[in-house]
């Protein structure tokens, strides 16, 4: 979208009383969704890879962390000033996310270096490696939290401005982590097949995600806020419903659920599970994308009408 098209879009939007937000998720704002998507995957993958001792998964998480970081920067208006974002740890979740990502990448580098470059730098279990382990873990927690809380802190967009959002983003992250492991297990088969663990785990987390999402939608519909209701409308029956139904529901839920059903009923292959992971991850992407795009600004009129005398 060039500057003129953005301008025309803004003018059109400003005429609406319930105005969709377009800064995040549209045009260059798409980088933010991509960034959140990869960083979410990275966090979940890192966590589960550590749990299940999957070094491929760790590497994948690391790489996705880098991709997420770069796309985050590409989203910024002034990326050259990125280092300034570290400053407001006390109040700003973006600062915390930035610190988290920095910690994660630095920590993961320290932790992965001896694993993938054995004997070259420092050894596994060394102090540096341990520092890396801890830093990456803290960073991971920071990122997982940042993504949800950054929405919760968005007072202008009532649909996001919900306490459930952080929990939802953490669960996306976990679901994404499982999805990544499905894929890495197919690329580099681990010593012991993880499918029997991952499949119910995926199913369980997916159920949690669905529950949280349902609660959020319910909250938005009953919270009495017109903008939140419009967001739900846009998501389920409006501007972004195509992404939601095809991307989130069909690709992210129905298709992987079918694969899971197929897996549970016996005939499972790692390839099929990788497809499940891929579909689940793409579904998560559309989930983030469509909820972001469904954001509608709080109208300033809400409290004005009854102020007339």
């Amino acid at each position: 979208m060039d500057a003129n098209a953005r301008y025309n879009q803004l003018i059109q939007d400003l005429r609406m009383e319930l105005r969709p937000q377009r800064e995040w998720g549209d045009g260059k704002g798409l980088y933010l969704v991509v960034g959140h998507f990869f960083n979410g995957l990275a966090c979940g993958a890192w966590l589960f890879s550590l749990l299940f001792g999957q070094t491929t998964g760790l590497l994948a998480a690391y790489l996705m962390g880098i991709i997420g970081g770069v796309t985050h920067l590409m989203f910024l208006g002034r990326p050259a000033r990125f280092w300034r974002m570290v400053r407001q740890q006390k109040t700003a979740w973006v600062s915390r996310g930035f610190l988290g990502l920095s910690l994660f990448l630095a920590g993961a580098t320290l932790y992965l270096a001896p694993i993938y470059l054995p004997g070259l730098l420092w050894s596994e279990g060394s102090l540096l490696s341990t520092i890396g382990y801890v830093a990456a873990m803290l960073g991971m927690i920071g990122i997982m939290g940042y993504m949800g809380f950054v929405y919760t802190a968005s007072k202008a967009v009532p649909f996001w401005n919900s306490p459930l959002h952080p929990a939802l983003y953490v669960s996306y992250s976990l679901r994404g982590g499982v999805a990544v492991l499905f894929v890495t297990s197919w690329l580099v088969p681990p010593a012991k097949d993880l499918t029997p663990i991952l499949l119910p785990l995926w199913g369980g987390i997916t159920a949690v995600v669905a529950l949280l999402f349902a609660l959020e939608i319910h909250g938005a519909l009953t919270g009495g806020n017109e903008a939140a209701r419009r967001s739900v409308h846009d998501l389920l029956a409006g501007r972004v419903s195509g992404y939601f139904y095809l991307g989130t529901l069909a690709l992210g839920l129905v298709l992987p659920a079918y694969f899971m059903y197929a897996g549970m009923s016996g005939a499972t292959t790692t390839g099929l599970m990788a497809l499940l992971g891929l579909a689940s991850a793409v579904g998560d992407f559309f989930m983030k994308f469509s909820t972001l795009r469904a954001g509608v600004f709080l109208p300033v009129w809400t409290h004005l009408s009854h102020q007339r005398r």
Partner: protein
Amino acid sequence: MRWGMVIDLKRCIACYGCQLACKAEHGTPPGVFFARVLKHEEGQFPSVRQLFLPVLCNHCEEPPCVDVCPTGASSKNDADGIVSIDPDVCVGCRSCMMACPYSNRYFNDKPQHYFPQGPTPFEQRRGADHQRDVVMKCNFCKDRVAAGKEPACVANCVTVARVFGDLDDPNSEVSRLIKERGGFPLHPELGTKPSVYYLPA
């Protein structure tokens, strides 16, 4: 002290004088409005009423935009309550735009001047300090205020609907108007404590 503004909705006729006086004062690029006029309709024919609402940054006492800003570019001056953005520090993450419940912040990524042929001499001069790809908003005309003038939208308001003054001073005209005429801020339930109050139409 805490600068504040009172806008009398009974006087306002939505002439857009504030929106355009602000453009003239700040030379803001297309799609950036430090001041705007909103129109809203309520009721059914024939008992319908038109409501006009001039808006600008509310310079909140508890500004959510400042809280979410990762770089400190958005900040509140505790000496006068003015919330402003340092264009040299803003990284363009637009978190503040998602935090401002009043939609009074604009991201400057649209055309930088009004005529496709290039910036007018006016825009070259007035717009020289504006940066692309950062967030912009009203700063209560702090340069004018420092020079002892009223903000441009206040000084120009043809219906004299706007009053500017110190909210901390209980004897100021703004404080008096809020008290006597039931001044109200927008979305008080959000706890942002705006410094811009409206008098009922």
